[in-house]
């Protein structure tokens, strides 16, 4: 199968103006995943595995690495619990998601979602 290729620096709308394609490239999420506490990815892109590190502690490994560990990892989780991405052990190819109960104790929660925004290596 041949891969088609369109090369363009700008996208232009008939009335709404134009947009540099770098905005699209730079602004798109580079990886994402949705999983539950069983660490089985229901929907995702550019990840190789999820690791269940313990209660409320999961990490996502990437296939195509980010350029450094300075990227944005956005997390959400279900059931009105709290979650955050952890910078402590973050690398260019691994991000962490921690989940807590309402008292900020580590706690398992389903419907974990994480996206990575930034530059790829």
């Amino acid at each position, binding site marked *: *199968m041949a891969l088609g290729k369109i090369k363009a620096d700008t996208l232009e709308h008939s009335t709404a103006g134009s947009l540099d394609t770098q905005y699209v490239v730079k602004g798109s999420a580079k990886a994402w995943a949705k999983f539950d506490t069983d660490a089985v990815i229901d929907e995702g892109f550019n990840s190789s*595995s999820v690791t269940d590190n*313990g209660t409320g502690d999961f990490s996502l490994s990437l296939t195509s690495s980010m350029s450094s560990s300075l990227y944005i990892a956005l997390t959400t989780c279900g059931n009105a619990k709290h979650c955050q991405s952890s910078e402590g052990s973050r690398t260019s190819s691994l991000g962490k998601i921690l989940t807590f109960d309402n008292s900020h104790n580590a706690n398992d929660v389903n419907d974990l979602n994480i996206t990575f925004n930034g530059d790829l290596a």
Partner: protein
Amino acid sequence: MQTPEFQGTHLFDRLCWAKENLDGVQSDYRVVYEDSIDECAKILVPDPNWMACALQGGILPPVQVYWELAKDEAKPDFVKHTRGHLLHNTKPVEAMTEEQAIEYLIMKDCPQHVWRNWNEGNKPKMVICRKEQLPSTREWRNAWKITEELSVTELAA
């Protein structure tokens, strides 16, 4: 489906092709490992899209590429990757079996000190199992450990 010639194509673009053309493969294998005696056992679960790429062949770079990038990142003066081209320009690996893919994934996503010395010490630090062999609930999750009664003979069996 034939994989296009991908050497020199950005790995991200290859993954886009795979997402469009390959069905995800949910593996029943799990990798349980302990990387610290003070912490509970960790459980690694393969991504179905990644597994599809591994089984397809011609998409993923050799695992050694990730080791090179990890070495760069471990340097104290590391700012950002300057050898990312290794991911894109190194000849992709051929199709793997599911078992070979799990071995690759261990060498990619588990700490090296775990898998290089997995069977040194009083008990194995790492076990590949089926998901049915894991506890059915997450009760006392932070106390989960690989059993000390596990022997290499049993593993081989």
